[in-house]
């Protein structure tokens, strides 16, 4: 009896030791994990989290570097949200997104499908469409300004070939938004194409083979296999490209200066103009934080809309 009791005791002791060792290993693993994450957390806190919290704090003041900043509560937010120019800039941002994203998506999807079938030329095409991505917005803007030159620019030369009158590309209410959308599409479609291509390559070949056996045509395969399989890629691309397009600054700053009539003043350009000329920084900070919240909401909406569709499998 003593023997079995001792045995039972020693078994449970062993189990306890195993458990303890497992726990200590877990704790050690957890500790290692925390240490691994520590540099990123520290950097993010110092350069992202703390500044945002500080920004929220100073947005409640009339921030001024030469006199005492007065506490004004929510007045800066009130000024931003009741400013018709702020609302116009949001509208301009949305319009810019509508001009750029559908075109970019379509173009990238088509090119990705074409490149997927290319074997030898594919490598060359993939590198060359990526080149615009490494060009800065300012350089692209300057290149396009040459194209948009009223007299002697390539744009008006092309129009002239069709007998169309020269256009004031960036000084015309009809074409100003287009004049900044074109460089944006050119700059961004390289990355989009490559990501879509990666997504396309991920689709198992068996799906297409099965579809072929069932006698599916090209369009059916496109809409029933390719596009649904790319849903996650689309979500990622939509969220990132919409939020980045909405925040465009360098192109309207350089090409149209936000005109004519404020039609191409995107939100970031508006904030920059206020930063530049306002005596107090309150409006600029409050507007930037409002944009932060808006873009966060936009991303959530995009996620919900795309994910609410029925899952593929």
């Amino acid at each position, binding site marked *: 009896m003593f023997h079995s009791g001792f045995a039972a005791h020693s078994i449970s002791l062993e189990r306890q030791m195993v458990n303890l060792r497992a726990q200590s290993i877990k704790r050690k693993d957890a500790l290692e994990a925390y240490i691994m994450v*520590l*540099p990123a957390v520290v950097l993010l806190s110092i350069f992202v989290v703390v500044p945002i919290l500080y920004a929220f704090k100073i947005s409640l003041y009339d921030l001024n*570097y030469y006199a005492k900043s007065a506490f004004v509560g929510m007045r800066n937010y009130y000024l931003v949200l009741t400013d018709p120019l702020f609302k116009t800039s949001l509208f301009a941002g949305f319009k810019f997104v509508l001009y750029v994203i559908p075109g970019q998506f379509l173009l990238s999807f088509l090119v990705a499908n074409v490149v997927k079938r290319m074997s030898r030329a594919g490598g060359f095409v993939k590198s060359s469409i990526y080149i615009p991505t490494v060009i800065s917005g300012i350089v692209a803007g300057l290149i396009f300004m040459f194209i948009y030159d009223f007299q002697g620019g390539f744009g008006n030369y092309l129009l002239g070939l069709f007998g169309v009158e020269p256009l004031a590309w960036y000084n015309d209410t009809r074409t100003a938004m287009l004049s900044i959308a074109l460089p944006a599409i050119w700059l961004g479609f390289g990355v989009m194409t490559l990501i879509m291509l990666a997504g396309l390559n991920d689709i198992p070949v068996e799906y297409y083979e099965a579809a072929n056996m069932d006698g599916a045509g090209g369009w059916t395969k496109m809409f029933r296999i390719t596009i649904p399989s790319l849903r996650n890629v689309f979500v990622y691309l939509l969220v990132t490209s919409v939020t980045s397009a909405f925040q465009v600054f360098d192109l309207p700053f350089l090409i149209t200066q936000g005109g004519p009539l404020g039609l191409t003043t995107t939100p970031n350009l508006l904030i920059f103009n206020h930063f530049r000329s306002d005596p107090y920084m309150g409006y600029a900070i409050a507007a930037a934080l409002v944009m932060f919240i808006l873009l966060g909401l936009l991303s959530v909406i995009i996620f919900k809309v795309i994910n609410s569709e029925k899952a593929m499998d």
Partner: protein
Amino acid sequence: MKIRTNKMKLLLLTTFAASMLVAGCGNQNKETASSESPSDSGQATSSQSASESTAPVEKQKLILWHTVTEKYDQEWWKKWVDEYNKSQDNIQVELTFIPGDAWDQKLKAAQATGTAPDIYNKPLSGVAQEALKGTIMPLDDYVNPDVWNDLTENGKKYMFLNGKYYGFPRYIEPSALLLYRKDKFAEAGLDPEKPPTTWDELIEYGKKLTNKGVFGINMPTGEGDMSWTTWGMQSQLNGHLALADDWSKATIATDGNVELLNFFKRVFDEKIAPKQAIDGYANDKPIAQGKVAMEMAGSWTLGALANEFPDQMDKIGVSFFPTKDGDYKKPTASLGGWALVVDAKSQHPKESAEFLQWMFARDPKVLADYYQRGKYSKFSPWKSVEDYLIQDPEAAKAPYRKIIAEQVVPYAVNEPLYPWDVSVAFGQAFNRVLLNNMDPMKSLQQSEKQINDFIAKNQLAGKNFK
């Protein structure tokens, strides 16, 4: 074995984290150091002054920031700052040129961290707004009051604000002139010595001069440019600018401004001007290269032409910008320019004022050198310098200086001191007429409402300068 690997991991990670932090901080320092001298000229200066400052260590350093300007201007600055530094043992001025499009960010960032320069340049009409904000220092305590008596009427109006003097102006120049190509006139059968003086003549000449590849006249386009380049014309047609004297309301919905808008519409409707200004407003290239036969331009365009296209100078004619009836004895241009101001938080206002007086109020030769390098395209806000230039035989030879000095400058108006937003709203009135075909009066009334809203939100009424 396991313990050693763990210790290794820990050591590696801490080293990695530490090096990232050091790299982050280290990069910041390097960035500020290199961004202090972005242009080649800037670097040459700071290395030069660095070698000079290794000598007497007691020299008080003054930081001077200046926007990037024409080459001849930068050379003038470098020369005279060096002269000043050599001429005395107390103060060492460090000059940095900063590109205009990076200016606001750099200055604001410096102001935020309390490292703003001691002295920097500011457009004449912008000095008033800085004085309102309290970002620049009134200089009366550090400057002999006699100095200010040397300012011309225009110069004084820009610098003497609410009872105090706020800066040293460097030059004034008219913002709107008519430049034209005499050879193109002759080709079109027009008298090269008889530029158009009335609006009707301007349009008639423009039509004769517009051919394949050549436009009659390069006009300002874009609401920003159209608003400030027409300050002279606005004053000419209304007797006042966009705001009432006490800044309580907008005063732009006038018959005079309707005439102005209609004039611009006529010019563009007759297709004598490109709908998008070629190379922007008052650029010397379009007229030098013969892409346009006439140009609405500022007097700095002449300085640029003389320096960049000297062999074209004999083909260029200058006149006042046409008025409705051809009479030039009324405002056709506004007088703009730049001044040097001292930052309100500067630790060395006395030394800064000393330096500025040495540069601008001691010897007229210093500023005159600048005007000479600009081929006499600029004018002086200091009476003594103006007198000095009258003696200069080269100035008398500059063909256009006489015309501008007689026909434009005496009648020109100062730029307004109200915030830029008001002018942009006025500029938008132009665009609504030109691009959207709106009725001019309706367009002006819409801009008036915009401006009145701005005045209310920013409590501008009564903030005008006395």
